[in-house]
């Protein structure tokens, strides 16, 4: 099976992706978040799934997401994460930053 080459995620990028994934407002558990990131990026962004959890906990400590226990679609107990108001603001900021940086890097790559 030919695997598409994986990219190592930059520090902080994972945070941005998590926040973006949670933006629609639904509460999601870790597995769902990881699957969604993978699918939306066409399997390119598939980090070590484990590294998702320290990131989730860090975001929770920063108050950008909130966790609560709920029952998953398969009837198992799971930890669901939801974006908070300050998380929404943070996402806005980071997304803007990202666009600016990505645009700038793109320009440099084109012109160099």
């Amino acid at each position, binding site marked *: 099976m030919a695997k598409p080459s994986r990219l190592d995620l930059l520090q902080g990028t994972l945070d941005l992706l998590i926040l973006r994934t949670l933006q629609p407002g639904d509460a999601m558990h*870790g597995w769902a978040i*990881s699957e969604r990131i993978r699918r939306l990026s066409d399997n390119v962004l598939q980090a*070590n*799934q*484990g*590294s998702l959890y*320290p990131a989730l906990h860090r975001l*929770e400590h920063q108050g950008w997401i909130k966790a609560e226990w709920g029952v998953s679609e398969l009837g198992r107990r799971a*930890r669901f994460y939801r974006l908070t108001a300050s998380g929404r603001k943070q996402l806005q900021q980071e997304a803007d930053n990202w666009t600016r940086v990505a645009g700038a890097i793109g320009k440099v790559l084109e012109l160099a």
Partner: protein
Amino acid sequence: MTVSDVLLRLRALLFRARVEEELEDEVEFHLAMARRKHLDAGRSEDEAGRLARLDFGRVGAVKEDCRGVRGIESFETTLQDIRYALRSFRRSPGFVLTVSGTIALGLGLNLALFTLFNAYVLRPISIHDPYSLYSFTWADRQGRGHAFFWDEYQQFEKDSPAFSEVAAVQYVYTRVDGHVFQGQLVTGNYFQMLGVGSELGRPLLPEDASAPGREAVVVLSYQAWQNMFRGRPDIVGTKIMVRGFPMEVVGVARKGFQDISEVPRDFWAPLTMAGRLQDGSDLFGADHPERLDIVGRLRRGQSVSGAEAILTAWSQRMTLQLPDEGKAVGVLLHSKATSIPLTPELLITFSPLAVVFGLVLVLACTNVASMMLARATARQREIGIRLSLGALRRRLIRQLLTESILLSIPAAILGFIISRVTIDASIRVMFATVPKDMLELIHDVPRPVDWRVIAFMVFAALASALLFGLAPALQATRANVMSSVRGEVASDLRPVRVRNALVIAQITVCTLLLVACGALVRTTMAMSAFDIGFRTNNVIAMEIVENSRGRVMDALASDPAVDTIATASSVPLNGAVPSVTTRAENGPTISTAFNDVSPEYFEILGIPIVRGRNFTKQESASETRVAILSAMAAQRLFAHRNALGQILHVSGEPAREVRVIGLAAYIVTCCIPWGKDPVLLYLPATPATSANVLVHVRGEVESERHWLDTRLAALAPGAVGDIHSLDQYRAVGLYGFRAASMIGATLGGLALLLTLTGIYGVVSYFVTQRTKEIGIRVALGATTHTVVGMVLKHSLRLTAIGTVIGTGLAIGMSRLLASRLVFMRVFDSAAFAAGVLLVASTALAAGYIPSRRAAQIDPIQTLRYD
């Protein structure tokens, strides 16, 4: 740090098990989902599980990272270390007991000292807003403070620069029924200003001090009411005699208030009663006697430096008209929040004591450090294994330090008990050894265990834990991993070096303490044996109130036990004597202490008139302008000229010219530690200046004193103030040094004991370490003699280094002390020799026992170990 962060950390701390379980569940859920996905894709059960774990990464590392986010791993590590340490303590209770006992000894002594320091210097007086209360006076060119006269105080009250409230106070001393009764004459607003109420009756009120001579009322302290009046419930309304004048008790001050002076007061009376309760010129009269102290509250928001500037300007304005020596050049503004203000001078006086006590704690710590090091070396194999398994050195040091801090907890508790026992015991010893006449002046102040004492205890315990724990922790974890796993500790000799350094430090400190203590004891002995220049035996000095002087003198003259009576304005050995400036005709101007004495003064004290003659009775009675100088004063004033017959200009109110008629041998006037005062001027006593009467009695002096006191009290109540034998004055003057010697000897003994055990420990360790070597030596034919010598040489070398350093330090210290104390010699060879000898013989004794053990090593047994 956000709110959610704090809350989550707290949750992680408080519900550790639950948070851990949740993490477990979360990861488990993820893996289950991943497995399911792979199963759905048609993998086998095993394959699905494997792929799920592969995608996830290392579960343990992920969990560890998640724990890291919580930020409490340091706490958890500590918990782990504590559990580990407690387990190892359980295995060696003797070690724990020795360590905490040794540290507790040092801690306890220091805590006792701090508790006393706290009671006097740090604990605020129980009054309203103590920290805004200040005493104020101005200082002249020589830095001497000023006592105010009534008009100055009134002006101050009117201007009230920088102060929002002010009061004037004056100390008054008397005795009631033979008991010392010290009081404070105060302006009427005093109690209101301090916010102090009464236990019984009422406090003093402004109306009580409305006009001079008004309101013979008095408020007692709770303590005085309990002790001197046995807590009589009907005390309010009764009259008591104060300096022979009946005063009505109107109230008892609130319990716990004993005035804001250094020494607790027994009563307070309106300042307007000063004329009745005070000798000499009237406070409110034309003479303007300078007697008042000012205390007050600084205005809210007024800084101390700002207040000083304002007060300096005011003082300079007030003294503008005075001659230069009377002009104010600065102000003395001292906080009255505590009974003794915390000033730089106080710290300088107190610091030697604190250093000596601190050194004992340091000694205890080095002893324990030595023990810890031995223990760490014994655990070298364990530490080596842990290091080789990848434990971080930092982590091991941390664990060893946790152990030290844990050890300091029982030490602190035990130290606290020791401090209470020490304080009680030393107070008991003080009451048992203090000269009898001083007893009444000693007030036991409350010594509460407040937050300052607790804080000090915690701080000192932690500091000593670091002190005794850090070096061994650093040392033990430095070991070579390979050799220590194999159990070869001796190949790395550094632990021995550190322990040697510790022993040298101990011997140094011990030598310093013992030499200092020896010098102190010898200084005290020199002072006790010092020829003060006059005789004290069978002489009683008493202070007589002016209006009763005639009656008292008559009674004394008719007393069969009294054979000579003299008067003087100052009693020798009773502290600093007032001085005046004197100028010789065509000669220098010098400041001389003076005493107004009757002719019998020289006879009663046996002070020889070396040249010229004594005063005559007529000169005394008619205020003739004559004077007697101490021989040294004559030398300073007239150099080699004949002083007899010369004219001397004496400053004062009024300035006088006197003719020198005699030269007296010089004596100790102020206090023994100051030595003989070289310059002294005697003037003939007049009735006004004869405040003190000295009598020479036949028979036993103490019973005579008691008899005279009782008799005079019946004849003229309140007429006699202080009445003590001169022997008592002398004993009181030396008591401070005797007490210091006792404290010094106790600390020196403890230091010696700690050093003894310290050296014993180190030498035993040395022997254990070199068992193999010694065994080989014995096998090769070394005699007992050589083995003992070899071991002793080791301890002797350490002792030699330690005593040399200690002696050097002691010389430096005695130089410092000798500059302050007349009787202290810079190099007291006897004290040095005794100190060094004691330390050296202790060191030898401590080394001897282990060396004997070394000599008995059986070579066959030791060599079999390998």
